[in-house]
């Protein structure tokens, strides 16, 4: 190995990711070449020093701008078929086109006569857009690989509408499958909002049997008690009767049965 072929291996050598065969060859070169050896060590300090630079973080506004723009984009896509239909009117047979124009005229007259309703409609539309944005943020964060981000996603679910079945489904999925116990526990707490939903209650009861963590199982049981879900009794009965279940969990299930008379 000469110096020219040794140098491209320096970064992997610094990172410790160099494969064993290359490391041995490089080491043999260092034993013979003091120049490369000293250069590698000197530049190693530069390489490691770069890791000391804190990552830059964007402002909170960036996320808001993104979701706002995405929402507009999606609305634009949704409106496209309607826009095409306006051009299609020109091709309508004359009587149909005439009727369409007449209806349009009536529509304008009605619209100008009740202007005061415009503001309420716009406000309602704005509320809907904000609601969509919150839902999208919650769902997107809950799909991230980083547990902290998924936790943040669960926190966003507190801001969505109670009737949001998509978010409810995502929370149940998180409870059943998330690899982080903390995220699962947070999702259980967030389910309180959806406590009126039979899907939510059934989902919580079924989730107990899918858990490997006794802590999560106890939290699920507590949530069912909090929701006063007497339908959960049969699931709790089954749990008490399973010898393989953690004794503390069975004890908690027994307590829950006494509460849900």
């Amino acid at each position, binding site marked *: 190995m000469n110096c020219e072929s040794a*140098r491209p291996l320096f970064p992997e050598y610094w990172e410790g990711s160099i494969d064993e065969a290359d490391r041995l060859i490089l080491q043999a070169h260092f034993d013979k070449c003091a120049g490369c050896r000293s250069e590698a060590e000197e*530049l190693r300090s530069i*390489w490691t020093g770069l890791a000391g630079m804190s990552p830059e973080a*964007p402002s909170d506004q960036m996320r808001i701008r*993104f979701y706002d723009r995405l929402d507009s984009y999606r609305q634009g896509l949704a409106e496209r078929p309607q826009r095409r239909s306006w051009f299609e009117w020109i091709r309508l047979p004359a009587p149909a086109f005439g009727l369409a124009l007449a209806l349009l005229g009536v529509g304008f007259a009605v619209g100008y006569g009740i202007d005061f309703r415009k503001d309420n409609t716009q406000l309602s539309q704005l509320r809907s857009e904000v609601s969509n944005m919150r839902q*999208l943020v919650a*769902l*997107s964060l809950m799909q991230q690989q980083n547990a902290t981000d998924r936790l943040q996603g669960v926190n966003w679910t507190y801001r969505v509408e109670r009737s949001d079945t998509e978010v409810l489904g995502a929370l149940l999925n998180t409870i059943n499958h998330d690899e982080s116990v903390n995220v699962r526990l947070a999702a259980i707490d967030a389910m309180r909002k959806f406590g009126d939903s039979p899907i939510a209650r059934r989902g919580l009861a079924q989730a107990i049997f899918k858990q490997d963590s006794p802590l999560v199982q106890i939290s699920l049981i507590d949530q069912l008690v909090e929701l006063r879900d007497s339908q959960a009794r049969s699931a709790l009965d089954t749990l008490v009767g399973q010898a393989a279940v953690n004794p503390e969990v069975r004890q908690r299930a027994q307590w829950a049965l006494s509460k849900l008379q």
Partner: protein
Amino acid sequence: MLASADNEVMAEVRDGEVRKLAVLFERHHKPLFNFFSHMTGDRALSEDLVQDVFFRMLRYRHTFDPAHPFTAWMYRIARNAQTDLARKRRPEVSMDHSFADDAPPLEPVSSRPGVDEELGRAQETKMLRLALDRLPPDKREILILSRFQDLKYDEIAGILGCEIGAVKVRVYRATKALGELYFQLAGAKAV
């Protein structure tokens, strides 16, 4: 694992699930911002560029091929966005211009007696930051991609359109150039 891979998500966006771009945004907006911020030194511009990248991904979603890594495609778009924006803002300026050419010179740490160890490290990091800012853009870029963006060499090769061996050579040369600038600033003997 709960999270779908980037390629799967982007394939869904390509096929009409536009809202799923948000999943990719949540995953990648911070590293992308970091990339632009290190490249340009301008926070506001970096935020604009991040937005631009995601909406270019939407506009050109039909060009995404799930057989190739999503990150390589994303960074290619990012580099194009930066080039396009730079041309639009200052068309008279050569692309080789280093934005830090006007940065004030930093007093070498060796002329400040009594600096304790922690302050010394902070000062070294600051000098390294200045040195990075003064590198030519192509050298700065390869260091940012390899050191800050958590990308493997084959991914960087895909982004830059070159061989893996060439990436390794360029990383070495960029580190050497950075070292030379740093040691000049530090007042010590250059490599």
